């Protein structure tokens, strides 16, 4: 039995790591989305975290933990710097500005050869990231998010999500709340970038482009932006899907797309809204209201 477990882990450890890593990223985005910030900055944040932490471990010889923290802090700083002006923009302009940020970071990474190695990237990065690091990070972020949602801060955020003009008029400092969430999102994505860099021996600018940012958004949205476990569900589903469909080499892309479309169409509130559907069918109206944690009532 233990041999079987050993073999299972050896065969699938990378998938497990990726699921955890993507869950972490998903929470970074979940925080941003919970205040209606549709952020495409993930790729840029992860790049900051990854390059900074690798520079710390490989050039400066720092231990792993401070390097990850340095990467996360740099990324959080980046979030603060771009967030302060960009958060004034409404809706889609915010999305486009964060997209421009990610692309600028990618192009700088491509050209700053002495630090980033350009397109060739950085190879032979020591593999410090262990599965338990990732698992711990996910548990911590899950706990923090859970606590946050029950706090005054969380209720203010929920109000902003409903309608930021009304929230503002009720005395919520919308800008400060959104900025702090955006910085937190940057911190988490930076940490994820740092952990990812020390997981796979190699980083390069192509890891952190628009594709990365869009994927990161898909996790929490597909899982359900109103549910605490939505991001994990979305991240795991999206990570496992290409592996699960591996039997069909030819039609894999098409099947993958079709499956996602089907989920979106049948569960327009995200995968976790499956629970809501069931509750609604039992007819418990009160439960249904409580099952919308996005509202200020929870």
């Amino acid at each position, binding site marked *: 039995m233990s041999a079987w477990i050993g073999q299972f882990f050896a065969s699938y450890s990378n998938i497990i790591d990726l699921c955890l890593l993507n869950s972490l990223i998903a929470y970074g985005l979940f925080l941003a*989305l919970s205040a209606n910030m*549709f952020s495409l900055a993930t790729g840029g944040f992860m790049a900051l975290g990854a390059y900074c932490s690798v520079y710390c471990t490989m050039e400066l010889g720092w231990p792993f933990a401070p390097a990850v923290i340095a990467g996360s802090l740099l990324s959080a700083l980046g979030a603060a710097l771009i967030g302060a*002006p*960009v958060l*004034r*923009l409404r809706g*889609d*302009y915010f999305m*486009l*500005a964060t*997209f*421009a*940020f990610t*692309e*600028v970071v990618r*192009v*700088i990474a*491509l*050209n700053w050869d002495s630090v980033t190695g350009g397109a060739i990237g950085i190879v032979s990065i020591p593999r410090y990231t262990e599965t338990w690091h990732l698992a711990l990070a996910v548990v911590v972020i899950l706990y923090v998010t859970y606590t946050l949602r029950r706090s005054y801060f969380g209720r203010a955020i929920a109000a902003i999500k409903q309608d930021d003009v009304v929230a503002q008029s009720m005395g919520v400092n919308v800008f400060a709340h959104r900025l702090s969430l955006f910085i937190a999102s940057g911190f988490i994505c930076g940490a994820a970038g740092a952990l990812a860099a020390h997981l796979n021996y190699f980083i390069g600018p192509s890891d952190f482009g*628009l594709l990365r940012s*869009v994927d990161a*958004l*898909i996790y929490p*949205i*597909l899982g359900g*932006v109103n549910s605490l476990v939505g991001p994990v569900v979305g991240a795991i589903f999206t990570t496992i899907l290409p592996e699960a469909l591996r039997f069909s080499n*030819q*039609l*894999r*892309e*098409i099947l*993958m*797309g*079709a*499956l*996602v*479309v089907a989920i*979106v*169409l049948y569960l*327009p*509130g*995200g995968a976790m809204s499956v629970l809501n559907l069931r509750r609604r069918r039992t007819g418990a109206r009160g439960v249904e209201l409580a099952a919308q944690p996005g509202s200020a009532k929870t």
Partner: protein
Amino acid sequence: MSTFLQQLVNGISLGSTYAVFAMGCTLIFGVLNIVNMAQGAFFMGGAYFGLEAARLGLPAPLVLVVALIGGGLLGVVSELVIFRTLRARGGHRWMGLVASLALARMMVGLAQEVFGTQVQRYPASGVLEISWEIGGVRIQLLQVVILVVSLMLMALLAFVLQRSRTGRAIRTVAFSEDVARIVGVPVGRTILITFFLAGALAGASGMLLGNLFNVVSPFMGEQMLVKGLTVIILGGLGNVPGAVAGGFVLGLIEVFSVAYVSSSFRDAIGFGLIFFILLVKPNGLFSGFVERRA
């Protein structure tokens, strides 16, 4: 001097393909306020529709029509299958992004299955290889043709939006769906027509770009989508004349940053500028004549 003029020609020619594509994007993203990531896939689809038509030996204008209609139909399909269903079921706007991205992925996969992964080209045509040299500046007949066609498409769209009944309906829906319903505009049909127009523009630009640069591949839409988003920022969301101007501006920025700064910083300059524009003039460079949106 002749180098400068040549770069100007290069920029305008590149910009015209961006402009046509961006007009479609701005109709969907800005006017209808829908995030449709499959727009790049319609662009790719149009290029393949055109390619097949050209291989059948159809004359060039008909090839363009095939690409227009093909791209338009893809747009209609995406609205019917995804966006309309999502609206009916009360899905969040963000879900449209996820679903359209998945749709784009399916279309790329399908194109790979049907046409193969390899890059293909439009059949060689002697007429289109003609070029002139005027004062040290090379101008291809194809560039001129494409510029003219692009301008015609832009004029046509402007006419439809400003003068026709459909155009008024689209602008009303863009202002507010509820208002549109109250004044008796058939909202569903109007949105469908807008999707057709946006898809047709994407398809046409796919065919034009495929011809001009001799490249048709299943993956050609991805980069174009990035360009489209960029142009929308430059021109202002939902601003159709802004998208046209933004397309030319982006083409010129790209070419001149290669010419006078460095080719490796081309995109950094482009995106840096965009970031700057968003901070200083978030409604786009051409917000003077911005159309109203909800």
